[in-house]
């Protein structure tokens, strides 16, 4: 898969926020957009329904600066979590260099998280990506709920690798959001190699 775009001497990495409906993907992006200084970010594009459910995607670009003559950018996307938007999710996931899986910590949403994670690995697989060696950060969001899914449970049922980075967050207040973004961005950079596949 193409890990970067070589045109115009810019390296563009694509990070996608994936997860079940209402888990807080858009809320993550909104917080990040608010938090980053103007000079580093572009406008946010939000394609949603009247009920503020993501219809196609949310998007905004971040310019990190110039590294060895290449302008380094990160494009952040969210997918629509509602089950029937499968086709749109596939489109947005294509060409991703890393994924944040935003899980909903609400106990009743356990199966939805598992189902959506499996959909994600299937989609990645269809693009020839091996999900076990691909940058993924698992974010347990909505940690402010009284009863939450204990850490480790999703990893166990999904048989995720031990070294998979996991974070806890409350996207509405921003807690854990920038930490998650840092983790996934660094995973993506560390994973970057010149394999000529772009």
């Amino acid at each position, binding site marked *: 898969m193409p890990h970067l775009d070589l045109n115009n001497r810019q390296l563009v990495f694509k990070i996608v926020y994936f997860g079940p409906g209402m888990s807080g993907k858009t809320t993550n992006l909104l917080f990040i957009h608010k938090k980053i200084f103007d000079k580093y970010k*572009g406008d946010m594009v939000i394609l949603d329904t009247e009920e503020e459910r993501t219809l196609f995607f949310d998007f905004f670009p971040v310019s990190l600066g110039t590294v060895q003559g290449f302008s380094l950018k990160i494009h952040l996307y969210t997918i629509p979590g509602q089950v029937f938007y499968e086709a749109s999710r596939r489109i947005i996931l294509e060409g991703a260099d890393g994924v944040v899986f935003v899980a909903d910590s609400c106990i009743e949403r356990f199966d939805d998280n598992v189902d959506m994670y499996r959909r994600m690995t299937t989609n990645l697989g269809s693009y020839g990506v091996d999900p076990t060696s691909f940058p993924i950060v698992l974010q347990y969001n909505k940690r402010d709920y009284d009863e939450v899914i204990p850490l480790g449970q999703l990893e166990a049922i999904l048989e995720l690798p031990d070294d998979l980075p996991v974070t806890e967050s409350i996207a509405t207040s*921003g807690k854990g959001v920038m930490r998650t973004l840092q983790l996934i961005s660094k995973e993506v950079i560390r994973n970057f190699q010149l394999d000529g596949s772009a």
Partner: protein
Amino acid sequence: MNESVVTGSNGASINETLARLVEKTEALTALLISRHGICLGQAGGGARLNATALAALVAGMFSATKEVANIVGEEQFSILLQQGKKRHIHISLIGEKSMMVIVFEEYSRIGRVRLEAKKCSSTLVRLVNQDRKDQEQAIQDISIPDFKEYALNLIDRIFVIGEEEDASP
């Protein structure tokens, strides 16, 4: 943000090709966009556009159209035309990996737009491929360890973890 300033050796000729097309069609602007939503070149200042956002949207639109095409038993619709009150856009596939967006105002010029878009299509395909080769060469010169270290520093600096971490829920 300062977007899509083309500096590459062949990037200039992508822009030149687009500039000639803008001139001939009297379009407001023309952009070349990669399938993954990245702006590869632009010409014409007639419309102040957010090229980055436009690129992401058009790429999404084109992929969606491809899925629609598959559903109705077509491989791909090679041209998309959107007619507005004052402005119109003509989007065409450029090879497999990119597309060209032309924004214009006089709808009666559609014939000309269509013709010129078709005429410069093969030139653009060639330039995009050439550009990619040049860049692959250029990127070999990057020192990966240095690149990574510097990039990781930028991430620490720009994705700042702030006081929200201490805020109680």
